[in-house]
Each structure stands twice: as C-alpha cells, then as structure tokens.
C-alpha cells in the first residue's frame, strides 16, 4: 500500500557494481517506503539478481559507486549478518542445502541470533518448537521438515516455503524475494504468495524480483520496475506487469543500451 507519509526503508542511489570486473549494475536507483510492495522485472542478465545479492552483501560483488541507505543506516558499511540483524532479508533463488544440520537447529540459531541483536529474549528449544510450528501452519508445511537437514532433499517448492518460513521467523523490515516463483507449481505458488501476503504489513516492505507476471497475480505490487542493462528503465503500477506479459520487453525504450538478441 502506498502512503506518502510512510518512512523510507530503502534508498538506493546511483548504484554501480561489478562481478569479476564486469559491470552489472550501471546506475541503479530505487526508493522503497514502508507498507509498499515493489516488483523488479526484466530479462535474464538485466541485473535483477545482482541487485538482490548486492543488497544482502554477497562478497563476489564489488560496489564501485552509489549509496544504499537502509532506514537510518549506511547499508554498504555493514557485513551480511549485520544487514540481516538490521532487518534485511533475502529469500534465495537457489536456497543452499546444509546436510548434517537439522532445520530446527538452524532456524532456532538464526532466530535467536537476530533476537539477541535486537535486544529480545532467546527462545529455548521447546518454546521455539511451539513458535515455529505455528509459523509453519501459515505455509502449510509438514512439521517433519524441522527434523530434516536444512533444505537437503527438499523439492523446489519445499525449499521456497522454507525460505518464506525464515522470513516469517526473522520479521524483516525489508524482504527481497529473488525469483521465488521459479520452479513452483501453481498450488505451491499460491501457498508461498499467501505466506508473503500475511507477513506484509504497513511497517515493512517487500521487493519481488521476478521474470514472470504470474507471481504478481497473487502478490499484487504497488510498483513495477523494469530493469535493463543494469538499471531501471521504466516504472509503473501493477498494470505494467500485464503489459509486459502481452507485449514482452522489446517495446520499452532503453535510451541506447539493449540486451542484444533478447526476446521474451
């Protein structure tokens, strides 16, 4: 929901970033206020996922110019874990499997680490078990997933649900969902979208990074941004996503730079 009086959570200005000395982000700007849902769309290689990784602080990406203000903090000065503790959450496109660590152990460790940083009480295993089971209902997850190793042997849909479960536990101020819809069948997509919708409120914000309009049928964005060649080239409302679905990306003017040969 758009409310002009809301607090600005994220303010990205003139962001440039390299991976392996190749510039991927080339002057990226975005402003996100609390209560808002933004969608960033674009073709493969446009820099969407790079933006998500740079926000979370992945060391493979070097920021060469620009600034990221996260509430009242300079995000680029923070280590990845400090960003998480400050309330940033990245739902991974490809969640990592960690054989040997029980999901319950991992979730509780993450939850308690963040709670301590925020000056709250830790939960002991029994308290946490009650708490996490409640959150799992939100995502229609089988409690068996608590006993299994983190993401190991999970289907694509189960991994994505586990990501949203972490989001529900950590209660971030800003969530970036990187291609969360990829690999999901329609039932799993609805469950994941429902979870995200229940977590979203007037005090937090969500950025959906996606290829397809499909997800946006279930999580309705306030803004749709189109990325090309490392920056946002067009911004509109939710109807822009529908237009992209029917017309593809080619019609959008790029002011010179295009993805050579790219088709929708």
């Amino acid at each position, binding site marked *: 929901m758009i409310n002009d009086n809301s607090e600005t959570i994220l303010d990205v200005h003139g962001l440039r970033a390299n991976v392996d000395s190749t510039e991927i982000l080339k002057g990226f700007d975005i402003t996100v206020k609390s209560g808002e849902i933004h969608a960033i769309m674009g073709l493969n290689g446009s820099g969407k996922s790079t933006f998500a990784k740079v926000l979370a602080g992945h060391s493979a990406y070097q920021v060469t110019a620009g600034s990221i203000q996260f509430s009242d903090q300079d995000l680029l000065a923070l280590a990845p*874990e400090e960003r998480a503790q400050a309330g940033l959450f990245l739902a991974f496109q490809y969640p990592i499997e*960690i054989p040997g660590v029980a999901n319950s152990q991992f979730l509780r460790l993450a939850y308690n*680490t963040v709670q301590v940083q925020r000056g709250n009480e830790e939960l002991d295993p029994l308290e946490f078990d009650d708490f996490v089971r409640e959150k799992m209902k939100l995502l229609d997850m089988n409690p068996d997933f608590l006993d299994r190793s983190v993401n190991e042997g999970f289907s694509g849909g189960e991994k994505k649900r586990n990501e949203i479960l972490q989001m529900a536990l950590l209660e971030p101020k800003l969530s970036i969902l990187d291609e969360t819809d990829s690999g999901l069948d329609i039932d799993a997509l609805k469950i994941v979208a429902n979870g995200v919708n229940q977590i979203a409120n007037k005090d937090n914000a969500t950025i959906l990074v996606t290829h397809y309009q499909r997800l946006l049928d279930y999580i309705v964005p306030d803004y749709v941004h189109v990325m090309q060649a490392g920056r946002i080239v067009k911004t509109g409302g939710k109807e822009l996503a529908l237009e992209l679905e029917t017309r593809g990306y080619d019609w959008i003017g790029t002011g010179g730079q295009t993805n050579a040969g790219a088709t929708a």
Partner: protein
Amino acid sequence: MSSVVSHDYLESLLESLPKDSTDALSWLKQLRAEAIDQVGRQKLPTLRDEEWRFTDISPLTKLPYRPSQAAADLRLADIEHLFLEEANNRLVFVDGHYAPQLSNIIDTENLVIGNLSELLSSQASSIQPHLGQYAKFQENIFTAQNTAFLQDGAVIAIARNTSVSAPMHLLFIATQKEVTSYARCLLIGDTGSNVTLIEDFVALQEDAYVTNSVTEISLAANAQAKHYRIQRENNKAFHLANCAVSLAHASRYQSINIALGAHISRFNLDVQITDEAAECSIDGLTLIAGKQLSDTHTNIDHLKPNGTSKQQNKCIIDGAAHAVFNGKIMVRPQAQQTNSSQSSRNLLLSSQAHVDTKPQLEIFADDVKCAHGATVGQLDHEELFYLQSRGLSEDAARNLLTYAFGAEIINRIAITSLRQQLEQIVLNQTQSR
C-alpha cells in the same frame, strides 16, 4: 634394526607367560609361535612401502614402548564418565589387560561375552576356527605383534537367530606411558544373529604410548552387525589398528569409524564379501588438528555376486595436520551384479592442513555398478553467505558448517548417548578454533 620390540624381548616375554599344557591350547601356542616367527621376519614399514608412503611411523622407534604390565587399579568412578547408558554390556581393558571389576555383563542368554583367556577352555571349539583366521599376520607386522602377545581380549559370540538389543561396549583405556598395549577383539555372529559392537579407545594420561589393536569379525549367513569404532587416544599416542571382517551369505555389516585422537594413527579395515548378497556400509570421519597424522586404509573385496558396498569417508583437517585415505575396492571376476559406491570428502580448515586421498578400484567383473568420487576443499562461500544472510556471524557460520560436515557421519550412529558425546566433541573442537 629399528623394530619397536626386539625378537629376543618377545621370546622372553612369551616364556614368562604361564605354561598351560592342555591340548586345548596347543593350537593357540602354535598360532602365537607363527606370529612370533613373522615378527622376526618383518620390518617396520617405511615411506618406501607403497602401503605406507604417506605415513611416517619412524617416531615410533624413538622410545622402547615395552609391552604393558597389568595396570594399577582403576576405580569405577575414574571411568564412569566414559560409560554409555544404552550399553550395559561392557568389557573394560586397562592397558590391554582385562579389568573384570570395571566390566559389566548383563546379557548372557544365547551368547558368549567375556575375556579371551578365561573363555579359552570352555569355548575353544567356537573360538579356534575364527581367532587369527581373518586378520592375517603374514604381511602385517603390527597384526603379527598383536597375535604374538595374544592373551587378553574381548570375545563375543552371538548364537543363531539371537538379536542382542543392548550394544556391547569395549572400552580400551590407556593409563601407562611409554608402553605398548595390545587390544584384541573377536566377534562371531552366527546365522541370523544381530548385534552392535562399540570399540572405544581412550586415555587417562597425557604421555606417549602405543595401542596395537586387532579386531576380527565373522558374520554367518543373514547375520547383522553394527560396528562403531571411536578412536579418541591422547594426542601423543600411536594407534595402530587392523580390523578384518568376513561376510557370509546375505549378511550385513555397518562400520562407522571415528578418528579424533593420536599423534599418529593408522586404521586398516579389510572386508571380505565371501558369499552372495552380502552388504556392507563403511563410513569414516577423521577430525584432526595440530600435527596429528591420521591414516585410514580400507579394502573391500567382493569375491561373490550380488554384493553391495557403500562407503563414505570424511576428513576435517585443521592446523598442520595430515590425513590419508586409501579406499580400495576389489571386484573379482565372479562377483557379477556388484553394486559399490565410494565417496571421499575432505575439508581443509587451514593453509597448512594436508590430505592424501586415493580411491583404488580394481574391477574384474563386467556387469557391475561402481561409483566413486573424491573432493578436497574449503568451506563453501555460498553456504557461508547463506548463513550470514540469516544473521549468523562469519565465525558462527564456519563453525556450524564444519560441525555439519562431520555430523553427517555421526548422525548415522544409532546410539543416542554415543552420538551426543561425539557431537559435543566435534562442537568443542570446531568452536575452539
């Protein structure tokens, strides 16, 4: 000659053993005599021996390491912390000598469990066909030494179709410095039997000593055994171990070997699949640091068709430690339809840590499935980033991933208290970095 124990010394020690002239023991005397003969013929291996090319055991020759004498009395209270609540059947050996006052045997129905020297007269007919028959001493000086000194040792024989629910816990405790202790175990599983064996090597002192361990396991048709081997000697010890396993028709053997201790350790595991449809699963975890050297050599020999072997070996190496893994899998010409897999995964935690890993597949049958793979690496950056992005510090993330790497093996141990003890050891070690 740089041998640990001189031939003369060996002979004199054996002469000092109590004379027993009963016929029942003549076979044992002969076995020992053959072993003594082999000790005289063989030399300590050096780096020039193919089987020992990564493992320099010459430090072993710097001290005499005489055979241990019976130790001072330990009290139960000294070792209670080592007990496993699920394992009520416990045999304790102190410096290789059986300690009945520290041992505890509750299961006696349809099985034999006890000390070799005490069971020899009553159980000779079941012991003789197996003792010294699997762990060959003709080409292994340490097995030869162990057999030459054969006196005390654990004997466990499970009767036909008997399933023993409480695990058998063999506790080998080192209390003396600069001695050699000979640990010996014989497990005989009759047709359709089922048992869990834990061999646990610990030290209650901090100086150097030698443990020479030989374990023989024979499983008859359809028998099952789980065999957990926990090597947590002190960090100055030498641990030289040989385990030989013989699997009959459709028998199943699971081995989990955890190597944490010793300055220099060597574990040879030899599994012979002697009849059809036998299965074995051989897992190992080595967790070492400092200047430790830990060498695991396994040999799985598929002699007959339809056998299955699964093997996963993992090493976590910190400091300037050195791990060696050599995994030989032999598939003989008649062993068709063999299904075998082997994986060796190694985690290096420091720039000076070192591993030599070698799969060695020798396949002479044409209709088999054999897979193997080896990896050596550091902690994965993407995994670290994933955990950091959930709020964990880099150190916490590293510790968790290191722990997880080992926990994958430890989690396969079906005894809760043992698993928890090991999890705690691994946690302490990973977090002390």
